[in-house]
């Protein structure tokens, strides 16, 4: 995190009494001004001071404002459920563009759905049938609220991906599972405000999730998948779980140049166009 410059604090004070509060967390005057602008735009005046105080303590802006835009959706956010990240929004929109027109019988499943942002975007953009699952009741409740809020119909169900016995057929499986290693979670690799305010259940995980997801891909007879990841080895793990004779896997990088997803498709299937994502 960059240092807070004293001259910026002086400048901030001159602009608004509230600005130094926001600045003390963001450290950048430019970002602080934009955040304050959004607070003033989206919240009633009598909540500005409290909002800025919370921001100075590192409470995520999305929990303070209660939402995060995601593609065309306005996603409701609250403590207990992970805030959607821009990297996720990016690959989900690219995925929708890549597969474009699918027929009415196409079925997609979003595993570890959290706020429901991925499932709802797939439904909105592709119009196919979508099912979202998560282990957390809080996440499912929020997903259902987001379905209503955005007028997008998706079925959300409770399911533990690590002990699932899915029998249904799906064409496409997507997931953003918890992928941070415990070592990184306890180090300074993970931002303090993430550890303080977002649920550990949504963040810490590893190989077991990619094993389970690859297993679900095969049991549901899916033809393609996209799983977000945090480390390149998670791509290797996933690839090794699938028979190389039928499956092709590739590593997708986000616009910041970081490995971000493992993308897989069954050779010669209708989802082979997923290769255009990478």
């Amino acid at each position, binding site marked *: 995190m960059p240092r807070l410059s004293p001259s910026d604090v002086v400048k901030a004070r001159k602009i608004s009494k509230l600005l130094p509060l926001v600045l003390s967390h963001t450290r950048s005057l430019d970002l602080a001004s934009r955040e304050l602008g*959004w607070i003033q735009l989206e919240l009633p005046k009598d909540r500005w001071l409290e909002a800025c105080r919370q921001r100075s303590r590192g409470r995520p802006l999305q929990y303070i404002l209660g939402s995060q*835009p995601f593609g065309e959706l306005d996603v409701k956010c609250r403590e207990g459920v992970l805030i959607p990240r*821009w990297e996720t929004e990016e690959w989900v*929109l690219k995925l929708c563009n890549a597969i474009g027109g699918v027929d009415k019988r196409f079925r997609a499943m979003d595993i570890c759905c959290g706020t429901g942002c991925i499932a709802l975007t797939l439904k909105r953009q592709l119009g196919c049938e979508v099912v979202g699952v998560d282990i957390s009741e809080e996440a499912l409740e929020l997903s259902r609220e987001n379905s209503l809020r955005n007028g997008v119909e998706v079925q959300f169900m409770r399911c533990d991906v690590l002990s699932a016995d899915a029998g249904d057929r799906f064409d496409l499986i997507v997931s953003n599972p918890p*992928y*941070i290693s415990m070592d990184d979670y306890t180090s300074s690799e993970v931002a303090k*405000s993430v550890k303080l305010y977002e649920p550990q259940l949504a963040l810490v995980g590893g190989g077991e999730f990619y094993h389970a997801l690859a297993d679900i891909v095969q049991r549901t007879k899916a033809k393609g998948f996209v799983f977000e990841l*945090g480390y390149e080895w998670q791509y290797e793990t996933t690839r090794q779980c699938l028979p190389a004779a039928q499956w092709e896997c590739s590593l997708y990088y986000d616009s910041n140049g970081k490995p*971000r997803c493992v993308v897989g498709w069954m050779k010669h299937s209708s989802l082979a166009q997923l290769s255009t994502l990478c």
Partner: protein
Amino acid sequence: MRQFLWPIQRQLFSTARSAHVRANKLPPRPKINEDEITEVFLKGGSGPGGQKINKTNSKVQLKHLPTGIVVECQATRSREQNRKKAREILAMKVQHLHDPENSRTSILEQRRMNQARTKQKKTKKKHSTLAEENAQRKLQQEQEELEFLASLVKQKE
């Protein structure tokens, strides 16, 4: 001089007609050709990203290849909305470059000045008609559009 007359005309003639005249005068919002631009999403720094950090990153940068004009937009929290806004701004700038006199930007600016002058002249009227209110609202929208443009230019400097 003609420009000074039209607010009076608006009171004399039917509102539908004056609305028509105004609509004709303002060139439509220009569009940008997707083949002529490159788009960059400005990065979230050197950190690991993803679940490990929660950063607002909605900044969009567009470059118009034929003219080299570059615009950035991070006005809203939504990257998708910023992508749309950036295209609107770029299109207006390109149009302004090609035809400064008749561009939407210039005409909006001119209108704003005329409006300010007539406001000074006009004696305060108690009852404004619905049509006038509508016209006022539209003018305000146009003004906001201009101010938005100006603020973006400022941000870049």
